[in-house]
């Protein structure tokens, strides 16, 4: 890497915004990888659209983190000049696209959460986060609808699509727990009504996902062992590959614009 990574002063609020920004950027990047490769032109457009929704969310959250931090960082520096250990996204969102079923299951698990999360965050005591939530909620609501419709068709489709959808659920299930976990830095923000306690969203999330998975004639795993680490910078190998592609241009030609 030709350019040194930036230092970030991770106060609780900066960290909180960065975590959500990283979620949006990494999932948005994953969806953008489908561009030109989706099963059909119509889905190519749909996936790219959703990727752009998430990129927009990431930009707003990074900009807010930069403003709160006040150390001269900006959205581009956060995205392009942090190392893998400085990324705070959920492990679920960095998982490779796999087949279309994997992408749709990842999308269902996350959008089902994000829809509830942003709706709750519209009541945040932090005016900027509340405004970002109001915009993001409509986007997440559509992402949930999109993935739900596909889940039902994949699960209740052919033998092949059913098997692939079930395999995707089984593969990704262990990454869902991290969405509902918090640490001490978030506890204060929750107590201060800046953040919502994600654990409070879990029952409704589980019902939404269970209903859709049930309608799709699929089943959720019984296992409740959950993988964590993304929120504190401990990532799977996949994120390294993603970042090397995402950051190569700015690392090689610092400050390049066009």
């Amino acid at each position: 890497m030709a350019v040194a990574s930036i230092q970030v002063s991770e106060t609780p609020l900066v960290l909180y915004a960065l975590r959500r920004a990283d979620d949006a950027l990494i999932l948005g990047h994953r969806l953008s990888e489908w561009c030109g490769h989706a099963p059909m032109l119509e889905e190519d457009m749909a996936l790219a659209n959703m990727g752009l929704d998430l990129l927009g969310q990431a930009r707003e959250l990074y900009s807010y983190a930069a403003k709160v931090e006040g150390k001269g960082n900006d959205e581009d520096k956060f995205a392009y000049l942090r190392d893998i250990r400085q990324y705070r996204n959920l492990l679920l969102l960095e998982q490779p696209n796999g087949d279309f079923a994997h992408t749709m299951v990842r999308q269902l698990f996350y959008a089902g959460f994000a829809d509830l999360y942003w709706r709750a965050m519209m009541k945040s005591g932090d005016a900027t986060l509340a405004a970002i939530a109001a915009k993001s909620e409509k986007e997440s609501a559509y992402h949930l609808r999109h993935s739900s419709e596909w889940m039902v068709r994949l699960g209740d489709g052919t033998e092949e699509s059913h098997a692939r959808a079930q395999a995707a659920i089984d593969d990704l299930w262990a990454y869902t727990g991290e969405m509902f976990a918090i640490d001490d830095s978030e506890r204060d923000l929750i107590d201060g009504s800046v953040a919502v306690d994600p654990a409070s969203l879990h029952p409704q999330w589980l019902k939404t996902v269970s209903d859709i998975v049930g309608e799709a004639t699929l089943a959720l795993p019984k296992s409740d062992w959950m993988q964590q680490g993304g929120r504190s910078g401990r990532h799977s190998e996949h994120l390294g590959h993603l970042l090397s592609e995402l950051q190569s241009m700015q690392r090689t030609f610092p400050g390049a614009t066009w």
Partner: protein
Amino acid sequence: MATPNTPLWEVFIRSRNGLAHKHVGSLHASDATLALQAARDIYTRRGEGLSIWVVPSSAITASDPTEKGMMFEPAESKIYRHPTFYDVPEEVGHM
């Protein structure tokens, strides 16, 4: 490419209140719900719409291009059907 699993749908968008739905194009989808989603993703990305209709292309009965002489030429010589031979009184104003 039309396949039995993803038939063709025609998409109509109404851009504003008070206007009619207008044909904007077509797409492939396995059923009406996914066709509506795809129409949203393909044809309203730049704020073009307030309402979408999707119609199976197979539900459209179209005139036969080889019959256009019989179908449309007889109307061409009947210029008196255009209401351009009337003097509109000034009090009526702009019509």
